[in-house]
């Protein structure tokens, strides 16, 4: 986790909020650094995490996690972390079909399937078990990322349904959190992606939007981060709070600074 981002968001591993949906969004840049932040944040906050890792292999997240101070293999061994490795599982589902149904079973179907099995997997992974073992703070679902589900054949409505079910169970019932990354296709006119992004934006409590700079590539400033706090399902009496910062990604951390205040330019 990046200490500077914790300061900006006004959170810390000890006092993490519960029952929230955080939406990570990236446009014209790569927002995966935010996924690494939240993964290490919630592991340090002693929460039970279910990580649906669809984009990269487990060892990639593990190695980056080690740079940020958490060991994913250790967390997996002690039962704090449950990982669904999308790439590896897709090969299993496709080439070695078996009787039991797999969370990514919809890959084999010709028409757009639903994500019920994926939801069942998440539910089984995060179900609070009573008695005996170490109790974790709260369950957290982390998805990297939801746009890949669209590429894998699920329709945007199916993905929205999946998130809705997860919210009902994880956020409402078990007072946990959900963090999901979605790509904003920008001017690529991806209707499905827009439907998904708009639908999720209205449901989330916190939106972190990583954008590339409008002026193009810069070596010292990698992008801009917009933070938006929302209160869904409540009449917006006053405006939602929003902040904008620019960031630079370094080897083991990400530094944030106000717009135009990059140390390289000052």
């Amino acid at each position, binding site marked *: 986790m990046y200490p500077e981002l914790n300061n900006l968001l006004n959170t810390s591993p000890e006092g993490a909020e519960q029952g929230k949906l955080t939406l990570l969004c990236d446009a014209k840049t790569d927002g995966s650094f935010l996924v690494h932040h939240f993964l290490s944040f919630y592991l340090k906050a002693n929460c039970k995490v279910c990580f649906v890792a669809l984009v990269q292999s487990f060892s990639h997240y593990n190695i980056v996690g080690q740079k940020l101070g958490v060991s994913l*293999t250790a967390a997996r061994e002690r039962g704090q972390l449950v990982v669904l490795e999308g790439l590896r599982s897709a090969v299993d589902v496709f080439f070695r079909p078996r009787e039991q149904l797999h969370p990514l079973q919809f890959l084999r179907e010709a028409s757009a399937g639903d994500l019920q099995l994926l939801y069942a997997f998440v539910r089984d992974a995060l179900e609070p078990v009573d008695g005996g073992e170490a109790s974790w703070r709260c369950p957290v679902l982390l998805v990297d990322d939801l746009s890949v589900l669209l590429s894998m054949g699920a329709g945007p409505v199916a993905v929205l349904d999946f998130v809705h079910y997860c919210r009902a169970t994880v956020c409402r019932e078990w007072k946990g959190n959900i963090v999901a990354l979605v790509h904003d296709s920008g001017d690529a006119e991806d209707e499905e992606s827009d439907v998904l992004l708009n639908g999720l934006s209205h449901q989330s409590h916190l939106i972190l939007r990583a954008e590339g700079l409008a002026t193009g590539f810069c070596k010292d400033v990698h992008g801009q981060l917009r933070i938006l706090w929302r209160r869904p399902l409540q009449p917006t009496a006053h405006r939602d709070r929003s902040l904008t910062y620019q960031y630079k990604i370094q080897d083991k951390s990400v530094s944030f600074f106000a717009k135009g205040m990059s140390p390289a330019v000052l």
Partner: protein
Amino acid sequence: MAAAGTCGTGTRSTGSVVAAASTNNVTSFQRRGPRASGADSGCSRLVSIAGTRPSVRNGQLLVSTGLPALDQLLGGGLAVGTVLLIEEDKYNIYSPLLFKYFLAEGIVSGHALLVASAKEDPADILQKLPAPLIDDSYKKECDEDVCSHKTESDIKMKIAWRYQLLPKMEAGPVSSSRFGHYYDISKRIPQELIETSKWHGFFLPEKISSTFNAEPCSLTSGYMKLLQFIQNIIYEEGFDGSNPQKKQKNILRIGIQNLGSPLWGDDICCTENCDTSHSLTKFLYILRGLLRSSLSACIITMPTHLIQNKAVIARVTNLSDTVVGLESFIGSEKETNPLYKDYHGLIHIRQIPRLNNLIYDISDVKDLAFKLKKKLFTIERLHLPPDLSDTVSRSSKQDLAESAKLLGPGCGMTAGGKTHLDF
């Protein structure tokens, strides 16, 4: 230093996704640290595979793309287990060259090849690969080009002084390196090299002529067959370490030509709203899954300029690791632009993956152009970005468009001209 953690680790868990015990993954993404949980005792030494080298940044195993200049731009080479997507140029003249360089590099390094095409028989493709250059013959050609420009290189640059300070872009073969070779396009690869190499071909018209499948597939049948073929080869030849009989310590280079074109049975290039719109993206996802768990690297050329639906291009880009786009000047108004008159097209590095790291090696220079000479395909810079460092005084003159000509001595290739605009 880390190479692939692959020395015959056999047990790959195909069981539940919640793998509690630590399994030995046969991916090249695993960094070799001190092995705590008593893994294979046979791998205590570092096993290095010919034609690969670990990346300087994160120990990731890299293979050469066949073009050392492109290797430099991609941060050292192509990572094993990743996909290199080449967005074809408009008339598909230059992208087959990159494809052939990749395969030729595989033959010269002794890697296994898997060539898939719907248009050309793989055996014919292999016959047309360029011949590798040995150092002496390359130097001779280099001298012929440069001797006429020798006088220019002695003149100190007055305006574009920053270009003089730059190190020369690697244009000649370094005789001691065995990573990245140079090729002569005008000659064909010697027959003996092809015969001694191990290659597998997938020619779609041959494979598709068999039975008509009644089961509705989620992929078009061409992609389905190709995936099964690739998976078969990877398993049979032991590139993923799961075959107990075969322990392979070699890289499999996969080359797929014109993926997405109508010849593969996909109508993504024909209509905007096609029924099989998910076929290509699913194929790419599963292909990447296969690559990540085996010692292989893949090059795909795709006619993205034909794809009608921009959303698909965005998704395909997100699903690939490295994306390089070629834009040739033929038939466009850029052909007559004096800025580009020495070059044949632009090359855009659209995406480079961040592997095992938050950051990645990205070059500062975004303006790159390529040129196809009689024997070589070269990539050069067009401009330098503005210098933001403190030592630059405000009154120094900026380089302008004609600075392309002033690149001559810097790269050792282009003709030197000294006209420039003065403020």
